């Protein structure tokens, strides 16, 4: 089939006088693992719930597989959701939870049993099939919620902050599991998260939202390496932001020039701490003083104060072959590879 799997057309949501989502367009392709990333209150969950049919949009259309589903509720859509609190049925066993949807759909009982077993295998829950959700760990409950949604073979699986309730270690394990699951079944996943690390790790495409609008979308590398705004730069990963001026579509900084189309005026040059080098041969160089050096495990975190007082953070690998460091208080010259620099509005 041609065309996107999901198309949102000028979709928006307004509550009384508050606009949660401003009119926006979005297309999601088959097989995508898409992250809706943003701080709390940015409208990402509202957007997800409109895709799932739980909220009627104020304006716009939702199309799934080329069909207008705007007026349809979640029970009529070929989407399934993994809820933030999982929403497992507390009075049903794991197997009954997973079999609920197929049973409602009127599938053949023998087929349901096979499907349930297949799902239990997929999420490694065979051993607890007859337990009630209350007797499961958080990670197991999460997997039941996944299996319960996936057994419906949805065109799109929606996940609302799927890992937020898990502790760090479990979250990492579930990230791997989600990725493996996506690969195994080849489905289309859309998940909401406020955790940029999770988005970068899991998604092949990230949509960043701020105050009800999409501010940037692209591959994890795109949004990390080429942030389109100050907000994206600061929200996704750590960023150094150096004030500069744009004159004639160029920004002069540290003895070098960055091409930067746009009107003349104040701008910020954004560079990631791991892109800044101590390489004196770099075409863009900034002189400063090493103010602090901290050992962070896999890397060292240097703080360099420039002549104008701006502080620049530098991450350097802390492995055995790392070059020896200057001492605190010494003058250093920072190298900014032009390809790693982005210019954004202040």
């Amino acid at each position: 089939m041609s065309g996107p799997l999901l198309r949102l057309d000028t979709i928006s949501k307004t509550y009384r006088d508050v606009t949660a989502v401003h009119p926006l367009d979005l297309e999601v392709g088959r097989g995508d693992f898409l992250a809706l990333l943003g701080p709390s209150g940015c409208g990402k969950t509202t957007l997800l719930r409109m895709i799932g049919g739980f909220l009627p949009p104020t304006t716009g259309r939702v199309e799934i597989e080329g069909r207008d589903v705007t007026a349809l509720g979640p029970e009529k859509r070929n989407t399934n959701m993994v809820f933030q609190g999982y929403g497992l049925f507390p009075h049903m066993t794991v197997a009954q939870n997973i079999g609920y949807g197929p049973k409602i759909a009127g599938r053949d009982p023998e087929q349901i049993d096979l499907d349930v077993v297949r799902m239990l295998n997929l999420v490694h829950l065979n051993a607890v099939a007859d337990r009630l959700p209350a007797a499961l760990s958080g990670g197991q409950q999460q997997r039941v919620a996944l299996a319960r949604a996936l057994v419906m073979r949805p065109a799109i699986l929606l996940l609302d902050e799927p890992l937020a309730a898990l502790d760090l270690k479990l979250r990492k394990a579930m990230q791997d599991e989600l990725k493996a699951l996506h690969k195994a079944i080849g489905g289309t996943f859309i998940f909401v998260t406020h955790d940029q690390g999770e988005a970068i790790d899991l998604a092949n495409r990230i949509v960043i939202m701020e105050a009800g609008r999409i501010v940037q979308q692209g591959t994890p590398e795109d949004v990390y390496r080429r942030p389109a705004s100050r907000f994206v730069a600061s929200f996704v990963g750590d960023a150094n932001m150096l004030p500069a001026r744009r004159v004639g579509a160029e920004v002069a900084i540290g003895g070098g020039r960055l091409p930067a189309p746009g009107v003349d005026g104040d701008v910020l040059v954004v560079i990631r701490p791991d892109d800044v080098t101590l390489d004196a041969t770099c075409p863009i160089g900034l002189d400063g003083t090493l103010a602090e050096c901290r050992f962070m495990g896999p890397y060292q975190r240097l703080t360099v104060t420039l002549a104008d007082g701006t502080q620049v953070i530098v991450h350097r690998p802390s492995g055995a072959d790392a070059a020896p460091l200057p001492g605190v208080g010494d003058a250093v010259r920072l190298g900014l590879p032009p390809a790693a620099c982005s210019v954004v509005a202040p």
Partner: protein
Amino acid sequence: MPGRGNLLWTGFGVLALVFLLSPLALVVFFSFAENQNATFPAGGATLHWYGVLFDDPDFWKALGNSAIVTLTVGLVSMVVGTAAAMTLARTRPALANALIGVITLPIMLPPLVLALALATGYSSLGLPLGLGTVIPSHVVFTQPFVILVVHAQMASFNMAVVDSARDLGAGPWTIFRTVILPIIRPTLIGATLMAMAVSLDDFIITYFTIGGGMTLPTMIWGMLRKALDPSINALGALVLVATVGTSLIALRLTRYRG
């Protein structure tokens, strides 16, 4: 001196319990005692008074009426109360609280005023008094118990469960039947039994709205006015057993663990 303080409290507790329970114990005790006047010395043990009670055709009539009223009131309160509570749970909180205030008015009102109002209301509408007027009158003051209890449960209900069921293709009625009802069933049974207990031992409102008939409480009232026959004690003991039994069943069903 914790020892003495504890002793004082224990003594007070025992005294309070004796005060509360001894009349009940005496009712049961004298229902099995030979003494005609229900006084000490009690005389030997006998089932005579139960025989007297069971020979009284009024007892069977009152028992039947009480059974009809209690069961109907329980059923109607459960259905009406649950429907109201489910609707209230979906109403915005400010409005819901205002509505609950209005709905629970009947249990705030003095029963005498409510009874008078109902009796006046029926007579002005020209409705003949009887079980047909007792049942709706009871529902007026039993449904708030069901609404309050079920609404409290719905307030803490995990709505993600409802969303999940919808997401998996279930319609409103299927969701209620397969998800909401099984989860709130213990609460529902508890609330219904509470409504039935309140209905079973109501006297004032029944007395004002029943006209010529009788239920167990109004029968006791009638017997008291004639003579202090120990068969009253037998009736009292039976009502006690029925009420305590119902409560125990309710606690067992709702898996109440104290």
